[in-house]
């Protein structure tokens, strides 16, 4: 189980880390000061979740890698995040839809994780569940406001849905790693989160006067290390200081 457990935690932890990195790019650029602050706050929470998960993954791996080594010294094929979170920020519609699809997933995920057989993960989940619930309230609010807003904002949300929907289903596709990790109660089986996720997403999209698109062939592979080109650029920026100055401290 050791390796499967590490993999399963990296899949969630890397998704949090990559999204946090994406969100920080809005800092100083969001359309309003309140939103600048909101995105930075959400990024901090999600980064906190990533730190907890990567730390635990490193401990389970037993090779002496801490959160920093895992974050800064792995290349794209070693990352296990969902393809959804590495997609570019695009406009505010893209950022908010991506955030909502993610938050709707983590809200269910963390709630289930509170029952993890790993006491440390259960404790992390207890805290994260409350935070994810606050995040989804925010991102869902924006999806509704933009979808049911002006003709311009509605058109932009439709474009975001076109671009991002094919990446939305990857979080719920089980493989042997997920089954092994779920069998020992470490993490919930991804497919079990799909039904409540769909219920929330459908409800919010309808409220936003946006269509619920039919299921496409879900884009996949991020959780196995096969990424879109975007991740390489993101990691280059995130890791450059650490790689240029290994072991440096303030």
């Amino acid at each position: 189980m050791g390796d499967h457990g590490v993999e399963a935690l990296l899949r969630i932890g890397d998704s949090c880390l990559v999204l946090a990195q994406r969100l920080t790019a809005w800092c100083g650029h969001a359309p309003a000061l309140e939103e600048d602050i909101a995105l930075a706050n959400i990024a901090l929470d999600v980064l906190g979740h990533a730190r907890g998960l990567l730390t635990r993954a490193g401990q389970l791996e037993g090779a002496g890698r801490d959160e920093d080594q895992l974050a800064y010294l792995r290349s794209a094929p070693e990352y296990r995040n969902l393809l959804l979170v590495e997609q570019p920020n695009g406009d505010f519609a893209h950022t908010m839809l991506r955030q909502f699809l993610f938050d709707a997933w983590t809200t269910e995920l963390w709630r289930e994780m509170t029952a993890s057989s790993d006491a440390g993960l259960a404790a992390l989940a207890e805290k994260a569940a409350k935070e994810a619930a606050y995040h989804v309230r925010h991102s869902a609010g924006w999806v509704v406001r933009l979808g049911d807003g002006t003709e311009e904002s509605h058109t932009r949300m439709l474009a975001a849905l076109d671009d991002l929907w094919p990446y939305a289903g990857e979080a719920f596709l089980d493989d042997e790693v997920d089954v092994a990790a779920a069998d020992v109660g470490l993490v919930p089986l991804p497919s079990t989160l799909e039904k409540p996720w769909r219920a929330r997403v459908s409800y919010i999209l309808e409220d936003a006067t946006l269509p619920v698109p039919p299921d496409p062939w879900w884009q996949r592979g991020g959780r196995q290390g096969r990424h879109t080109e975007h991740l390489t650029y993101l990691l280059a920026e995130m890791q450059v200081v650490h790689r240029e100055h290994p072991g440096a401290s303030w």
Partner: protein
Amino acid sequence: MTAVQEAWDLLAQVPDPELPTVSVVDLGIARAVAVTGDSVVVTITPTYSGCPAMREIEHDVKVRLAERFADVEVRTVLSPAWTTDWVTDEGRRKLAASGIAPPGTRMLPLLDFGRPATCPHCGSADVEELAGFGSTACKALWRCTACREPFDYFKAH
């Protein structure tokens, strides 16, 4: 005075770095104190997963308790998760006195983050949310529709 009481008294003098009007005891961040001889172990629990003040709090606790104890250890514990239900009555009074509305009552845990009971400036109950996120992770921005003043709200969490 017992050594445990001395430790709590010292902790009550450690301000929250981002909300210096309240202490780590007022906010319910300091959870437990255990004294053995000249050593003390303080258990603290983080408010939010991404709260950037936690490391500073740990440092401040160590420095303050070193005034009395030769050996100070700070343990961070995540479970049970911190909740604003742990903010003391004294903490709520201090928050309100500094213009921050203390956490309101929640009807549904996880689905509800409460609302300020009254405006901390004029006492009116006619208040509305401006933004869900504020200057620190634990606060939201609200305004009073009576006196028109904006104010921070310490979210029920």
